């Protein structure tokens, strides 16, 4: 994480140096700090609201039912997570919400899943399950891409949903490549250690 952060700052610094816009860098830094807080505040509201609704869904047992449906596939993807554990529940809830296109609802459950995974894990290093889980969230797996379809309709598309099959194929391939490469990297890093 530190390398990433330092790398990004350094890259923008050197690039501004080359283009001679270094004087602007200071103000830009301030601006992006302000924007960062704004964005954080706007997602905080969403996060709190969905956490509230998800708690309601959890208390009336809906989540239980949903997660039982997804269990068979997930057991394979997360071999070291006990399928009765809280972490497993949160993972399957996160997956169901993602599939339904409720990205904002999926986030709080995903964050809970990560916290649960962490509580069974010592150290600052990510476990295999954590990597798998984050990958499943960086690859968007939704059945109906509502936002894109809405945008296309706005711009006068005749059939906003005609890309559906392409989106499915693309997401599945991308996710498969991500998970497969992570397996390979994981095995490789174990061997070098």
């Amino acid at each position, binding site marked *: 994480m530190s390398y990433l952060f330092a790398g990004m700052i350094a890259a923008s610094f050197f690039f501004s140096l080359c283009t001679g816009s270094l004087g602007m860098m200071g103000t830009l830094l301030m601006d992006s700090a302000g924007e*960062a807080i704004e964005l954080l505040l706007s997602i905080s509201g969403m996060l709190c609201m969905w956490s*509230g609704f998800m708690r309601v869904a959890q208390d*009336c047992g809906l989540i239980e039912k949903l997660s039982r449906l997804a269990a068979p596939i997930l057991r394979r993807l997360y071999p070291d997570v006990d399928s009765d554990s809280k972490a497993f529940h949160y993972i399957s809830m996160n997956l169901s919400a993602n599939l339904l296109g409720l990205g904002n609802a999926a*986030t709080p459950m995903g964050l809970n899943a990560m916290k649960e995974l962490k509580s069974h894990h010592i150290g600052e290093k990510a476990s295999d399950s*954590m990597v798998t889980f984050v990958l499943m969230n960086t690859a968007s797996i939704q059945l109906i891409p509502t936002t894109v379809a809405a945008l296309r309709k706005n711009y006068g598309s005749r059939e906003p949903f005609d890309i559906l099959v392409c989106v499915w194929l693309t997401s599945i391939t991308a996710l498969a490549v*991500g998970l497969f490469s992570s397996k390979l990297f994981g095995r490789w890093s174990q061997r070098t250690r």
Partner: protein
Amino acid sequence: MTVALCIYALMCRVDIFQSFVEGVKDGITTVKLIAPTMIALLIAVGTLKASGVFDRLAEMVRPAAEAVGFPAELVPMGLLRPVSGSGATALLTGIYENNGPDSFVGRCASVIAGSTETTFYAVTMYYGAAGIKKIRHTLISALLADFTAIVMSVVTVGWLMG
């Protein structure tokens, strides 16, 4: 959906308001947990975007993309997509305006937008919540997946809708 949920919860005799408030409490804890990492990343991304690195990168990649028959209009979007969600959406609507949403490029861009996420943002947020500092190969794999999505968008649109 939220209405249906509330009705269902009432039918199950759940104290909705109490539950909701409990959930919001969890939400606030989560926000506190992810805030520092998120702010740091958003600042880094903001400066990177403002420095113009992305424009230059897009120019550098463009000839290679054209050589393999990849639509040049998609290059900036592919580069920006993992880093900035709003930036990529701006480019997407730009493509809709210039080429139309039902054009080949418009469709490819839609597929990219529908099948990828803002990778950096998700990685920081989830690891931030768990307090993980060493993310191992997560980023490489995630970016590989994004790259696959960009290539596949052109392949599937060309194949199924060409």
